[in-house]
């Protein structure tokens, strides 16, 4: 077994015992179940989940990830005295963060839909899209959490910054985009708004979901713009690529910090 897989296995043994992850899965389970019961159809339930996915996944992943990264100190100090490279350990730890959270989310959302037998030809692609977007968001915010956890050595300060990043990307940013749109409404700013959307992973995730649910009107100004511009497959592909980049870039910076720091 390659070293990363071995490291991951031991990290997972530790994380799976964590009540946070179990609670996270239960939360999605209960919310999805309630949405199916009250909404009646799988499509409506997934639509109701949209905001939960776009807002809650970044929040939980950032907060849990920052705490997790500080908690891994003992693990690091032990394993780095052994013949294990820092890059290997980093990848093992990162996978140990993103994998359980993604799994908890995916199970929490899929199980109620399966149990209530509401999955049909129409709902299945929506479920797939929701899962892919949720997992991508977990990756993006996992990478950001690891970056914050690596750069900010003080645990509380790290948590504060994580919350600040979340607030900025989910709330403040959309307000800013709206302000730009209103202030320059006479100018041709479609390209600018598109760029602003790509500069925020939360907005990007919205794009991916909105385009499939066709409900741009309720998702704020950014949503309306991108629906017009990114309705096609090319747009979705571009957004997906950007989400991957949003994972890789902060992840690589975090890896660089991890390789250079003193333990």
């Amino acid at each position: 077994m390659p070293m990363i897989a071995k490291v991951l296995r031991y990290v997972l043994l530790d994380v799976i015992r964590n009540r946070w992850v179990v609670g996270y899965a239960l939360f999605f389970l209960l919310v999805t179940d309630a949405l199916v019961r009250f909404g009646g159809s799988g499509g409506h339930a997934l639509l109701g989940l949209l905001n939960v996915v776009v807002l809650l996944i970044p929040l939980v992943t950032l907060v849990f990830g920052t705490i997790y990264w500080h908690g891994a100190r003992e693990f690091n100090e032990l394993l780095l005295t052994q013949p294990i490279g820092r890059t290997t350990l980093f990848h093992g730890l990162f996978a140990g963060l993103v994998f359980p959270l993604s799994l908890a989310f995916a199970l929490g959302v899929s199980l109620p839909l399966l149990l209530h037998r509401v999955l049909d030809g129409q709902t299945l692609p929506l479920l797939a899209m929701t899962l892919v977007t949720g997992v991508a968001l977990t990756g993006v915010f996992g990478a950001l959490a690891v970056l914050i956890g690596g750069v900010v050595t003080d645990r509380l300060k790290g948590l504060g910054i994580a919350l600040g990043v979340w607030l900025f990307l989910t709330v403040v940013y959309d307000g800013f985009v709206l302000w730009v749109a209103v202030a320059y409404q006479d100018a041709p700013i479609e390209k600018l708004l598109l760029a602003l959307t790509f500069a925020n992973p939360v907005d990007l995730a919205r794009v991916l979901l909105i385009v499939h649910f066709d409900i741009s009107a309720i998702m704020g100004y950014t949503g309306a713009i991108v629906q017009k511009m990114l309705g096609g497959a090319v747009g979705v592909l571009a957004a997906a690529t950007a989400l991957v980049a949003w994972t890789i870039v902060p992840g690589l910076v975090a890896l660089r910090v991890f390789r250079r720091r003193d333990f």
Partner: protein
Amino acid sequence: MIEARGIWKSYGALGVLKGLDVDVPRACITAIIGPNASGKTTFNKILLGLVRPDDGVIRIDGAVVNGSSAYRKGIGYMPQAARFPENLCADDVFRMISDLRGPAGPRDEDLIEAFSLGRVLRTPIRVLSGGMRQRVSAVLAFLFRPTLLLLDEPTAGLDPISSSTLKDKILRARDAGATVIVTSHVLSEVEELADQVIFLLDGVARFTGTPEAFKARTRQATLERAVASLMRDPEGRVVTEEAPCP
């Protein structure tokens, strides 16, 4: 065995090592002594790759320490205060590290018996006392029969019996050919163990040689007085003497 040249390291504005040169001969016990914050632990961590020096070169068995990890296979490390994943018990930790290291020869479990750790190994580490953790940490350092042992204040926090058990083990490991680096503030212990003494002060090795040479050089009867006299030496000379290993 170990050759360190011109090692510099500072943490922010705090300079710890300032051009440290150290030679550690094979199959010897080298004691690194010096006042608090003289850079003993930092040097150990640099040898392990836990801390990156700002400048300088270290060769272990001729190979430059440059961030790869394979050379750590031959190192057993006992940190000043060992930290383990709290939910695991010592047996889990040993098993995990054995597994990560991959197949190797038989493990050296002498100390488990000598410390009578039997049941303790299956207790979660978070409930163990400081001395017990220290023992677990000692077992781990020797477990994979390392050729280089880095022991950072190994007997701190151990009761007299475990402390002498550990010292016996260190001597046996040396006799079996292991190179040992010990840092300690207990100078009687250094006199008992060390073949070579390196005295760190202000980030450089101010004295390298046998304990006897150290005492002779400073014309003092005990190591403690020798250290005190060297620390008061205003000229800050650097003395290096050949230390013949037994």
